[in-house]
């Protein structure tokens, strides 16, 4: 046993897969210790808030400002409002209204804005311009207002008695706040999803739930496969015929069809993560049954099994001492593959809209389903779907890698 384990951990493929899997598992276990938010709390108004650090504006106005003399500040400020693309768009407009191209210098901000100010007319419709483009120019014009000003901004508050505005403070362009002194800030590493929920917290909970689904489904499928395979292989005869009949039957009938019919039939209300896991487990035992049966048949007539039979050992004992130890490694590998495929199946079912009900916990598949329904992939909101796909691929990849590593340990022919 010890020797086998040492051998397994000498397989680079297994070790890489094992480390990846453990890393994911540890993250799932440790993250909730630090961040105690519920995964499905809605924290943002509006959908798909991009990833980043969010600092409360009101609090930062009330935080003591520091003056920093940074040279590039003005240039950066202008660049954030006026990108190279915007400059080209401005040039297009200016050329369209009849300014000569050589008079326009897109690198000289001051003269460009001067020309723009003199020639832009928001009511003017250029021929052949789409409505979206017209609106773009209107937005650009609004954004450019006051871009070159060097004065600060005055903060005013409404006087509760008179209702007039009263100046409270002036924010200079060289004012900075120390982010550590702002009481309210929130790091959204992966932004928020279509419902305004923190994707990072959600995805880690979802990974945990999906792993749980995978493990439950994997254990059920492997358990059924093992029992049926042992029965068919060891007892043989009519039992074998019956088991093989059903195994062959469910090999050709697509699993996804069975899953769709069953999930749809049990209805939205009773579809929890565990129910889905059980359904997946009960529909994916065929491969394990086939292989266990094949292995048992090849073992059945070996000398040590015959000896055991002659010694009058009961069937249970023969199975546990003379057969199971020989197929244990194989069954373990099958379990790994079952877990990985169950996670993929859950995701597929959820994308089809037949996943676990949505009110309590997220699963990786449900997150993808939500992202697709709200067209995150078309709108370019990568943080809503890409991390989920990567996690699914990593979990499945690490499990498959472990399986390949084990395979190479047990089947020396496959080694490099």
């Amino acid at each position, binding site marked *: 046993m010890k020797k086998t384990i040492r051998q397994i951990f000498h397989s680079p*493929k297994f070790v890489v897969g094992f480390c990846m899997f453990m890393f994911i598992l540890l993250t799932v276990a440790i993250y909730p210790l630090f961040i105690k938010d519920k995964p499905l709390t809605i924290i943002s108004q509006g959908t798909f808030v991009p990833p980043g650090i969010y600092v409360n504006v009101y609090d930062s106005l009330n935080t003591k400002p520091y003056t920093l003399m940074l040279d590039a500040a003005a240039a950066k400020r202008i660049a954030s409002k006026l990108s190279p693309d915007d400059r080209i768009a401005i040039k297009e407009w200016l050329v369209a209204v009849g300014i000569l191209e050589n008079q326009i210098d897109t690198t000289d901000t001051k003269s460009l804005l001067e020309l723009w100010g003199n020639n832009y007319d928001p009511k003017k419709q250029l021929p052949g311009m789409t409505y979206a483009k017209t609106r773009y120019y209107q937005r650009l014009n609004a954004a450019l207002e006051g871009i070159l000003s060097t004065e600060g901004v005055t903060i005013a508050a409404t006087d509760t008695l008179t209702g007039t505005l009263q100046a409270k403070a002036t924010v200079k362009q060289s004012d900075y706040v120390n982010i550590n002194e702002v009481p309210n800030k929130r790091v959204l590493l992966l932004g928020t999803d279509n419902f305004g929920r923190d994707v990072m917290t959600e995805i880690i909970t979802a990974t945990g739930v999906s792993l749980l689904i995978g493990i439950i489904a994997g254990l059920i499928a492997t358990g059924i496969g093992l029992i049926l395979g042992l029965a068919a292989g060891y007892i043989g005869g009519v039992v074998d015929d019956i088991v093989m009949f059903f195994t*062959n*039957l469910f*090999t*050709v*009938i*697509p*699993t*996804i*069809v*069975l899953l*769709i*019919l*069953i999930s*749809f*039939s*049990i*209805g939205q209300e009773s579809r929890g993560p565990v129910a889905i896991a059980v359904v997946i487990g009960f529909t994916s035992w065929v491969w394990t049954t086939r292989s266990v049966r094949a292995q048992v048949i090849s073992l059945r007539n070996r000398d040590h099994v015959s000896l055991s039979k002659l010694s009058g050992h009961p069937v249970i004992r023969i199975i546990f001492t003379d057969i199971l130890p020989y197929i244990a490694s194989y069954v373990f590998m099958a379990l790994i593959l079952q877990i*990985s495929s169950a996670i*993929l199946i859950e*995701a*597929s079912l959820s*994308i*089809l*809209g*037949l996943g676990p009900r949505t009110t309590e916990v997220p699963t990786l598949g449900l997150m*993808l389903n939500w992202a*697709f329904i709200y067209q995150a*992939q*078309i709108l*370019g909101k*990568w943080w809503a*779907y*890409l991390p989920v*796909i990567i996690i*699914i*691929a990593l979990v*499945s*990849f690490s*499990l*498959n*890698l472990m399986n*390949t590593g084990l*395979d190479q340990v047990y089947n020396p*022919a*496959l080694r*490099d």
Partner: protein
Amino acid sequence: MKGYMRYFGKKLIWFIITFIAAFLLNFILPRLMPGDPVAAIVARLAQGQSNASGVQAIYEQYTELFGTNEPMYTQFLLYVKNVFQGDFGFSFSQYPRSVADVLRSSIWWTVILQFPAIIIGWILGNSLGALAAYRKGWYDRLILPVSIFASALPAFGMATILLVIFGVTLKWLPTSGGYDVSMIPKLNWAYIWSVVVHYQLPFWSIVLIAIGGQAIGMRSMSIYELHADYVKYSRFLGVKDNKIVRYVFRNAMLPQITGLALALGTMVGGALIAEIVFSYPGLGTILYNGIMGQDYPLISATTLIITIMVLIATFAIEILYGFIDPRIKAAQSD
């Protein structure tokens, strides 16, 4: 030919048995729901349906169609009769259209997309796997992890990544549909071109997924064969390497063909989801719309058709296999 006929007969009987079983499952599974299935279906449907007379019409039609007040075996006979007449009833979500009407065109979209994609993915995957086994070295070290990763990536993941890269970011290819929405399906070059362009992304996402899984299987098979005694013996006899390689890959290929027949169900499942990602007008998208619209008759008919398609394809592969496998030919001389 006798041996082959016996093989063919066995496969045909098996095909008929699986067909009946699939049919029964499609009938029984939804009826395991407690309560009156039609009432449950119509109750669900009524939540989103404003047309009260439509609900009533559907209820009456389905009570009659399914004969829910009759005993189970009468219901089954009714079901069989209806299905063989191509009558799957009305679609709930697209009421007055019948299910047969909704499905008619989408079957062809699915066949045209998935059949070539799976075959090409299988051929490419097997070639890569065989090469990895034969060339070994860095080539194998590159192909194997990449294949494991490609097969670990779910079909929808691959589809989404291709969609975002080539459809949304680079804007080379359209992101959804089977042809340009502004076009009317007609046989002219502009329409065919539009179909071809829309075909690319779903096609390649199915191919890439298939390649990964097949390459891994073929690699293991080829390695087993390369270590077989007949290879050592042939080497010993001084048979040319090319000839040995040909034997090895022909032998490794046989289990891969059976493997394709057995994996077809899973592959079609993945491909259906790829269709959904691209809103391709095939069975996958229809199924998705059916589930979203709680449209039971549409789901039931689609799953039945998918099952039948997979069963026919599996049967076809097995028949073909009979021609290729020398052991079945050898049975003739018995």
